[in-house]
């Protein structure tokens, strides 16, 4: 999956860039692409563990709670941009039921990743 959503998110929701002040954020940035791949790999893992997501994502939850501390609102922004990207690339597959399922999945993943925040 081509990880377009990251730079996309930075454009529509510029406040998300505050978490990447240490990155080169220019167009085509290798760092952004690499980080996008990390995200894509995590989502691929999640997809293969739909019936035990909290366990599968436990160490990522720890990371976000104790180290990254990304404000929960940003998961919504990224999830939305992921949906837009998927819609753009696979319009034929994005019927309302698929749209609903994907949104539900991303929302659930986001909840798990912020579940140990407090």
């Amino acid at each position: 999956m081509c990880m377009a959503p990251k730079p996309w998110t930075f454009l529509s929701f510029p406040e998300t860039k505050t978490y990447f002040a240490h990155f080169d954020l220019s167009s085509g940035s290798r760092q952004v692409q690499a980080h996008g791949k990390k995200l894509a790999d995590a989502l691929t893992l999640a997809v293969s563990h739909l019936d035990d997501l909290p366990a599968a994502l436990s160490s990522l939850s720890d990371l976000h709670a104790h180290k990254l501390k990304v404000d929960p609102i940003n998961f919504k922004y990224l999830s939305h941009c992921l949906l837009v990207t998927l819609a753009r690339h696979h319009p034929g597959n994005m019927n309302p039921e698929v749209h609903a399922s994907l949104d539900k999945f991303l929302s659930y993943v986001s909840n798990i990743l912020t579940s140990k925040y407090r």
Partner: protein
Amino acid sequence: MVHFTAEEKAAITNVWGKVNVEETGGEALGRLLVVYPWTQRFFDSFGNLSSASAILGNPKIKAHGKKVLTSLGEAVKNLDNLKATFSKLSELHCDKLHVDPENFRLLGNVLVVVLAIHFGKEFTPEVHAAWQKLVTGVASALAHKYH
């Protein structure tokens, strides 16, 4: 106050010029009810909402979607004055319809996804960002008169 650059305005009006208001309005509202089923709470009197196909085929939903999107057309014509444009509608949604403003944000985002489906490659990150700014501005304008 939302400020749109010349490029953003062009991106918005260019896309809007190609939108079928009736179809897109129905689709966006229908998808809102499918993706976020709790939003059905405002549409008890609209008939059959029992499945995605029922919702998307529901004539009342389609008609209402068209109404909502036609109103967005006013936003496109008044990008520099969103709060004034939606002042009366804001009062209506607060005082008579009792709609949580979060729903405006949800609908705005669903509309953006629908546009992405229809416009594909043409819906570049820059075009998306302009539309994201618009739907955020409209949601904010609609919530502005809430008390």
